[in-house]
């Protein structure tokens, strides 16, 4: 039950895009067509679900204050390598993206071609690094970080697919020239984020 509640909270109440503004760049750039946004959403789910638990391992067994105690070497047992976590996390993310890319290329070539350039660009998507950093800041355990990773990715996918659907609807609307494109998308996102705020207070 605790995990369901965490998932609902991460998807709806603290949506990674609409409440924390993470991954805005690809959210705005790739939401013109429903198909691409769906593919990107899937890729983000995959990568977040893998990287958050993996970074949890690295944080807990290598970087945290006293994390190296399991080696049994006295000199290592009170070493604090927390300052390295940004560099380690980004390396893990870059290699996971590479791995996902290779697996998709080998086993799901259709999905791979439809994702195209977006897959490598996920490395610099702030929602991925943000997911791992939130995991550290909120002290999740292994199961919690797996659930958190998946639902943060799901929240991103949900938001980007709905935004692209809305953008498709307004394609032929008359929008003042200065507001066309980015400006209007910003305001739409604002309205969507307002709608998502209605979920606040749901408590399972």
């Amino acid at each position, binding site marked *: 039950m605790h995990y369901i509640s965490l998932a609902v909270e991460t998807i709806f109440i603290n949506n990674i895009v*609409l*409440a*924390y*503004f*993470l*991954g*805005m*760049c690809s959210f*705005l*750039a790739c939401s013109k067509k429903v198909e691409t946004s769906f593919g990107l959403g899937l890729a983000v789910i995959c990568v977040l679900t893998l990287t958050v638990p993996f970074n949890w391992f690295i944080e807990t067994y290598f970087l945290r204050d006293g994390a190296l105690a399991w080696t049994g070497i006295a000199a290592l047992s009170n070493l604090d390598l927390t*300052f390295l976590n*940004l*560099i380690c996390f*980004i390396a893990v993310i*870059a290699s996971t993206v590479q791995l996902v890319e290779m697996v998709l290329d080998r086993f799901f070539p259709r999905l791979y071609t439809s994702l195209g350039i977006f897959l490598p660009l996920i*490395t*610099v*998507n*702030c929602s*991925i*690094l*943000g997911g791992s*950093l*939130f995991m550290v*800041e909120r002290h999740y355990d292994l199961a919690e970080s797996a659930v958190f990773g998946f639902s943060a990715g799901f929240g991103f996918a949900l938001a980007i697919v709905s935004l692209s659907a809305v953008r498709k609807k307004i394609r032929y609307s008359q929008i*003042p*020239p*200065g*507001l*066309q*494109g*980015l*400006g*209007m*998308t*910003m*305001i739409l*996102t*604002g*309205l969507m*984020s*307002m709608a998502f*705020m209605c979920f606040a207070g749901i408590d399972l």
Partner: protein
Amino acid sequence: MGARTKIITDPLSDNNPITIQVLGICSALAITVQVENAFVMACALTFVLTSSNVIISLLRKQIPGRIRMIVEISIIASLVVLVDQTLRAFFFELSRQLSIFVALIITNCIVMGRAEAFATQNPPGPSLLDGLGNSIGYSVIILLVATGREILGSGTWYGIRVLPEAYMGNGLAVLAPGAFLILGVIIWIQRTVTNNFKDD
């Protein structure tokens, strides 16, 4: 206008990183509840962007093309660690408020974007100017968004009360939707004033 001056002035309005190039939106929205936070973030980004541009441009002939992304991201990440640790050591309260967003400068597309688009092809001098120009363009916009949000949200500016005590404060401006709406309006005004109607 000289070519050098143009490198600096271009990103201020005609090619602004946030409103025209659509880069670095995440932090522009997340840390703009108060002008003070936005100011610190602007300083941090200016430092990271300018130094990463210069370093990458100095190394541009040494970095092998195939692995340049990894090299660039490690240079940027090291600079960000530097900023993050400094903030934590000397301005702990501020660094707690900025939470993970200082660390997220690593994945801020402006830094990576300028490294790829400019620093890898130009000598250090112009790269320095390009870094500065883009940081100023970014800072101006986030300070504007923060000004709007802080005045509407709590009636203060940089902690100084500007609206009468009776002003209740509009909760919406402090929350996420307010940030989206205010940035949307700023983009609208900026594109109308400069007549730059780019449909993206």
